[in-house]
């Protein structure tokens, strides 16, 4: 039996358990995402695709820190919400172009990430996670009370990105954003920085001893993921048209983290896929918020108790049994 001490050691083999299917299946998945909405004529289904991709992309961004530097962001929603509100406020108050607004939102979220990280990154990962959570709570309350600026709970109306009400342009904008984020994350992971992540993931002390500065690399990953969250938030603002403070609530963060975990940590594509399986049925439950949240709660508990490696773990296992991919490595936690 692992002692709590051993369990709580924030040493992870995260980068060892990257569930790497290789480029072909993931590429096919992206091709599917790119083509499917064109073939689907149903407006509602297209809407589901946008929502699924939006949540999937968020879960994927969250996985960048959870799966690679073993750092979970309990305040994810704040960075997403900050991106959304930044562009929303800039566009409505100063008439800035939405495209610039979205970039500004991304920068703001990155800056908040820098601030949060600078406060806590030297401490244990737990502090970063909880500090980020407080940032979210503080931002949420602030948007709620600064009614003159944000309109508080009344909701801030944000102009749309495109003139036409057609949903496809939105979908493809989001698709491109997601693809760019995925590629950037992959590039980072496969670069020298990624090597440092790997070292940190394996053994922080060893990494430090061999000249890697864990704090610096963790910061890089954390800030990047915060900025990505802000970027997606900015898109969301112009897609949905109205922003309310619950956007930054713990509930939103938990939905993202849940998808991250259900999809499987450290795979990037797993969370993306999970969103497409989980979100559409949930959209039907939108009016029954309690039921939706009860199911989310139960799903989370079930995944944590039964199979913490998530869907990606299952798929990988199946693939392994079918000998689909040689040479890929996976040391799932269920083997220990």
């Amino acid at each position: 039996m692992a002692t709590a001490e051993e369990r709580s050691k924030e040493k992870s083999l995260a980068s060892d358990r990257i569930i790497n299917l290789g480029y072909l299946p993931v590429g096919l998945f992206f091709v599917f995402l790119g083509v499917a909405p064109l073939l689907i004529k149903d407006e509602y289904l297209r809407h589901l695709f946008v929502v699924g991709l939006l949540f999937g992309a968020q879960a994927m961004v969250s996985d960048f820190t959870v799966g690679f530097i073993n750092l979970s962001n309990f305040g994810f929603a704040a960075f997403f919400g900050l991106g959304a509100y930044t562009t929303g406020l800039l566009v409505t108050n100063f008439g800035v172009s939405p495209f610039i607004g979205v970039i500004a939102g991304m920068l703001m979220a990155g800056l908040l990430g820098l601030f949060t990280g600078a406060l806590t990154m030297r401490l244990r990962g737990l502090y970063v996670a909880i500090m980020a959570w407080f940032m979210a709570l503080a931002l949420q309350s602030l948007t709620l009370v600064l009614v003159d600026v944000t309109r508080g709970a009344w909701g801030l109306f944000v102009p749309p990105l495109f003139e036409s009400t057609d949903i496809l342009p939105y979908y493809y904008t989001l698709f491109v954003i997601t693809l760019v984020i995925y590629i950037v994350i992959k590039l980072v992971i496969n670069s020298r920085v990624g090597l440092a992540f790997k070292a940190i993931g394996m053994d922080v002390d060893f990494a430090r001893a061999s000249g890697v500065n864990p704090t610096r690399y963790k910061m890089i990953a954390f800030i990047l993921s915060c900025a990505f969250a802000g970027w997606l938030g900015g898109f969301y603002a112009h897609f949905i048209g109205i922003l309310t403070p619950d956007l930054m609530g713990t509930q939103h963060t938990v939905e993202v983290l849940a998808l991250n975990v259900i999809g499987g940590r450290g795979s990037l594509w797993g969370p993306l896929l999970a969103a497409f399986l989980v979100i559409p049925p949930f959209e039907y439950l939108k009016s029954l918020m309690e039921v939706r949240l009860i199911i989310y709660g139960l799903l989370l508990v079930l995944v944590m108790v039964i199979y913490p490696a998530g869907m990606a773990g299952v798929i990988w296992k199946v693939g392994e049994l079918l000998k689909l991919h040689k040479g890929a490595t996976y040391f799932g936690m269920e083997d220990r």
Partner: protein
Amino acid sequence: MELVDVWNVLAVGLVRGGLYAQMALMLALVLGVMSIISMINGELYMIGAYVSYFAFTLFGLNPILSIACAAVATFLVGALIERGPLSMMRRRAGEDWYLNTFLLTVGLSFFLKNAAMLLWKPTYRGIRWYWEGTVSIGSIGISIDRLVALGIAALTIVALQLFLRNTRLGRAIRAVSQDERGAMLNGININTIYTISFGLACMLGGIAGGSMLSILPASPYMGTTPNNYAWLVVMLAGLGNISGAVVGGFIIGIVESVAFQFFGEGWPNVISFIILIIVLVIKPSGIFGTSVKGVWEQ
């Protein structure tokens, strides 16, 4: 500001401080003994409030018995959660333990509060008083219920400390929090200690919920804010510090009450968080903070 106003603000602050101190203790107990990031504190508080409400109104029990019912019920719920999902997860996952406990308890919390919502609807279920009347000292007065609630908070905090310091079981809990292998080799069943600790922590929340029923009525989402504040207090005091958490609980309770008086709805949150951020900028590990393990000895 009149003296009476000052007194009112203080009285409200103290009672809320008692609540936060209890919740912070609850959190520190499971964090220190089991390394669990618990997010269900608020829901146990909620359950405690409902149990007392039903015991008091439906079954007409006397106040003390109603609160005792909440204590027993929340202990059992806590023990059940530990024996069920938590220990199942412990057997399985070795990595990412903190994130896993966070997600599991968040999942449970969502489940519990929304099940309560479905079951009991968002209506407030409160009582006018456990004990009617106020105690007045000169021109200022405080309701008996507030006084009792504060007294119960103080009592549970002190009783918990005494229990941990001076009893066989209490020592065993501390032993497990400091060295699990050492504890096991001395005949302590770690799993039992986990269950008891978790149950005890949950009981703290239940007592808080029950004893404050006439001040804060039962409702499904009532636990969310206290849970946030409990974490804030624990971060403010430093993750490893118990007496700090108690002091911090009262400080935050009073800050909240004062902020509400001067700025109104919503601002207490903002101000408390800003205070926390400032403290963390100056001293990242919290005002009194050190390590997490061995929480009980500082």
